[in-house]
C-alpha cells in the first residue's frame, strides 16, 4: 500500500501554510455558510479559523504533538457539529475535524510532496492534485443521484422526502414498508415475474443470433461486411422511440402486439448489437489457425465451433449476454408500445408509478435493481479480466 518516499520533506514556511489553509477553510466555509444562510460570513470565518489552526499547530505546538492535536480537533468539531445540527451534525463535524487535522499536517509539514518525484515544479504539484480532485468530483457527480435514492427507500413516509426523523437517525423515521410493498403487492410481483420471464428468453435469442452473426462477419470472404454489420448494429443507434413505433405497426400487422413473443422478439432485436460487438471484439484475438488445425484433424465445422472456438470466445459471449439481459430488463420505451397490460414489466411499472403516484416503492425497486446491476457488471468485469489473463494480455 505505502509507496516509497521519493522526496525528502521539510516543514513549510508559515506564510505558505497559513495561506493554503485559509483558502481551503474559505472554500469549506463558503459551502457550510451558504447552507446556513450567509456564504460570505462562512467564507470569512472558515478562512480565519483555518489560518489560526495552522498557526497553532505549526508554530505554537511542537511537531510531536500531532496525534493529540488531531484527536482534539475531531472532538471539538464533533461537539460543534452536534450543537449546530444534532446527531448528523456530530458525524459530519467529526469527519470535518478528521479531514482538516490531516490536511493541516499534510500541508504544513510538506508531506504532499513525499510521493512525487523531486524535480516537479510547484505548478506541476498543484496540477497533480487538482487533476485528482476533478476526477473525484466527476465520480461524485455520477454516483450521488444513485446513492441518494437508497436511504430514501427506507423512508417511513409515502414521499420522496428526508423527514426530520430520518435526519435525526430516529428509527421511527425508517421503515421497510416499501420493500414489503414491493415484495407483496401483486402489481410489483407480477411485474418482476414478467420481467424475469421475458429477459432470459430474449437474452437467449440475442446470444444465439448475435454470436452466429459475429462469427460469420469475422470471416474474410463475406461480401458487404461493413454494411451488414451497420444494419445489425442499427437498433443501438436509431432512437429507441423510432424503433418502437416501427415495431408497433409491423407487429400489429402480423398480430403479435401485446403478446409474450412480441415483447421477447423486440427485446432480442435490441440485445443483438451488444452481443455482436462483444463477440466481435473477442474474435479479434482468436487464432484462426486453431480452426484449421481442428479441420486438419478431421473435425467438422460444427464440432470445431463447439469444441475449439466457443470455449475461447465464451467470456465475450457471456458479457454480451449480460448486456442483452440488462437491456431487456431495463427497457421501457419498446415495452410501452409492444407490451400489454398483462405483460407489464418492471420498468413499465416504475415508469407509470413515477408519473401517477410518487411512491417510495419505486425507490425500493430501484435499490434492488441497482444491487442486481452491480452484481452483473462485476461478473462481466471478472470475466473480462479472466479472458485477458488467459490470452496473456495482462500479468495479473
Amino acid at each position, binding site marked *: 500500500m505505502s509507496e516509497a518516499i521519493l522526496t525528502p520533506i521539510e516543514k513549510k514556511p508559515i506564510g505558505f501554510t497559513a495561506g493554503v489553509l485559509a483558502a481551503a477553510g474559505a472554500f469549506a466555509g463558503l459551502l457550510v455558510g451558504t447552507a446556513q444562510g450567509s456564504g460570505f460570513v462562512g467564507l470569512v470565518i472558515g478562512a480565519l479559523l483555518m489560518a489560526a489552526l495552522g498557526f497553532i499547530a505549526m508554530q505554537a505546538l511542537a511537531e510531536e504533538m500531532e496525534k493529540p492535536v488531531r484527536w482534539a480537533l475531531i472532538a471539538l468539531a464533533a461537539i460543534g457539529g452536534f450543537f449546530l445540527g444534532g446527531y448528523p451534525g456530530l458525524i459530519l463535524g467529526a469527519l470535518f475535524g478528521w479531514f482538516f487535522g490531516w490536511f493541516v499536517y499534510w500541508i504544513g509539514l510538506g508531506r504532499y510532496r513525499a510521493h512525487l518525484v523531486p524535480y516537479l515544479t510547484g505548478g506541476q504539484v498543484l496540477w497533480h492534485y487538482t487533476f485528482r480532485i476533478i476526477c473525484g468530483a466527476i465520480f461524485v457527480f455520477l454516483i450521488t443521484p444513485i446513492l441518494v435514492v437508497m436511504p430514501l427507500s427506507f423512508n417511513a413516509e409515502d414521499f420522496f422526502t428526508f423527514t426530520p426523523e430520518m435526519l435525526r437517525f430516529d428509527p421511527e423515521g425508517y421503515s421497510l414498508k416499501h420493500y414489503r410493498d414491493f415484495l407483496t403487492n401483486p402489481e410489483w410481483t407480477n411485474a418482476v415475474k414478467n420481467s424475469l420471464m421475458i429477459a432470459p428468453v430474449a437474452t437467449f435469442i440475442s446470444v444465439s443470433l448475435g454470436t452466429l452473426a459475429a462469427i460469420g462477419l469475422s470471416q474474410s470472404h463475406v461480401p458487404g461486411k461493413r454494411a451488414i454489420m451497420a444494419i445489425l448494429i442499427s437498433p443501438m443507434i436509431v432512437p429507441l422511440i423510432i424503433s418502437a413505433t416501427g415495431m408497433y405497426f409491423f407487429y400489429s400487422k402480423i398480430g403479435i402486439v401485446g403478446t409474450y413473443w412480441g415483447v421477447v422478439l423486440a427485446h432480442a432485436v435490441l440485445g443483438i448489437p451488444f452481443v455482436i460487438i462483444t463477440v466481435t471484439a473477442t474474435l479479434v484475438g482468436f487464432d484462426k489457425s486453431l480452426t484449421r488445425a481442428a479441420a486438419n484433424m478431421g473435425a467438422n465445422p460444427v464440432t470445431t465451433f463447439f469444441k475449439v472456438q466457443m470455449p475461447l470466445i465464451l467470456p465475450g459471449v457471456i458479457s454480451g449476454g449480460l448486456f442483452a439481459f440488462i437491456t431487456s430488463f431495463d427497457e421501457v420505451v419498446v415495452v410501452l408500445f409492444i407490451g400489454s397490460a398483462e405483460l407489464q414489466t418492471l420498468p413499465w411499472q416504475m415508469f407509470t408509478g413515477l*408519473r401517477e403516484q410518487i411512491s417510495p416503492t419505486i425507490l425500493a425497486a430501484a435499490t434492488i435493481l441497482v444491487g442486481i446491476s452491480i452484481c452483473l457488471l462485476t461478473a462481466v468485469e471478472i470475466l473480462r479480466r479472466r479472458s485477458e489473463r488467459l490470452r496473456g494480455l495482462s500479468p495479473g
Partner: protein
Amino acid sequence: MKLSKTLMATSALTVAAAGAYAAGHGMADSMTLVSWGGAYQASQQNAYVAPYLEMNDGVSATWDESSAEAVAKLRAMNEAGNITWDLVDVVAADAIRLCDEGLAMEVDHDELLAPAPDGTSASDDFGDLIVSDCFIPQIVYSTTFGYRTDMVGDTPPTSVCAVFDTEAYPGKRSLERRPIANMEWALICDGVSIDEVYNVLETEEGQDRALAKLDTIKDDVIWWNAGADTPQLLADGEVVIGSTYNGRLFSAIEEQDQPIGMLWDWQMFDLDGWIIPAGLPEDRLARVQDFVRFATDTQRLADQAKYISYGPARASSAPLVSTHAELGIEMAPHMPTDPANAQNTFLFNYEFWADYRDDIDAKFQAWLAR
C-alpha cells in the same frame, strides 16, 4: 382453450343470472381497464371491480395505467387495427375529443346504464354531466390549492388570490404546466368578475392581461405535469402553496398526516368517466356493457367515495356517501361539492377551451419559454 374458457364463463354467468342484458350473449372472460393508477384506481378496484369479479366467477380484469396518454394510444391502436383496451377512464375533455374522432363508441345512456333506485332515468340522474354522447360520467373532481400550514404564519390563506400575493405568502408555488384554470385564476385575481372571465379571455388583450398577472409570480412558480407532483412538493416544504386534484390533497392530509391545509376558493370542477373504445368485438363489448352498468349504478358510485374524496356523478348517490373505509371519518365535508367548500367554483369550460385551447396553449408556452 380460449373457446372452452369463454364457454365456461358464459355458463357461470347464466348461473349467476348477471343482468338482463347479458342473457343469451357470449361474453369475453377478461377485460382490460385503463385508468390513472394511484389512489384513484385503487378506489375503482375496491368499489366496483373487486365486487364485480366476485359476482362473476372466472372473469378477470387487468389494469393498464395509461389514461394520461389514452388519446394517443387509442389513435395508434385504431390505425394498427388492434384495439386491446375494453374500457378507458378519461377526463371529459379527452372523451369529447375521442368521440369527435370516432375512437369512442356513442352510447344510449338510458339503455346502457341502470336507473336510480327511485326510478329516475340514468340521463336525468347524471343530468348535465353527460357532456358527450360517448361519455359515461363517474366522478366530479376539482383542481384546487393546498398550502403548508406551518409556512403561512397565523393567517392561512382564504382566497385563491393568495397564490399571487408573494408578500403575504413568500416562497415557491406550484401550478399546472398548462393555461387551463391558471388563466381563469389570474383574471379573477386581477379583478375580473366570474361572469366576465371567458368574455375577457376570448380577446387578445384579455389573454395578455392574464399572462401579465401570471408574470408577477413567474419566478416563484414550479410547474407540474403529474398530479403527484404538488403533494410531493408540499410534503418537502419545497412550495408554500400549490394546485392539484382535491383527492390527492385529501390523501396527503388525512391518510399521510402531512401539515397541509385545503383552499377551496375558486376550485375548478372537472369530470372523469368511462368511454368504450369503438370497434370492440361483440363478446368483449357485451362484457364491458355488463360491467359498466354495474360499476356506474347509484350504490357503486357512492361506495367509491369511501376510498377517495371525489364526488359521485349521480345525483342519487350523494345522500349515500358515508365514511372513509379505513379512517372512519365522514367523507361528505371533504367532497368538492360540499356546500361549505363550493361557495366559489367554476366548471371546466369545455366549449371555450375546445375553441381557444390551441391559440392560448401556444401563447402560454411562448410565455413560459420567455
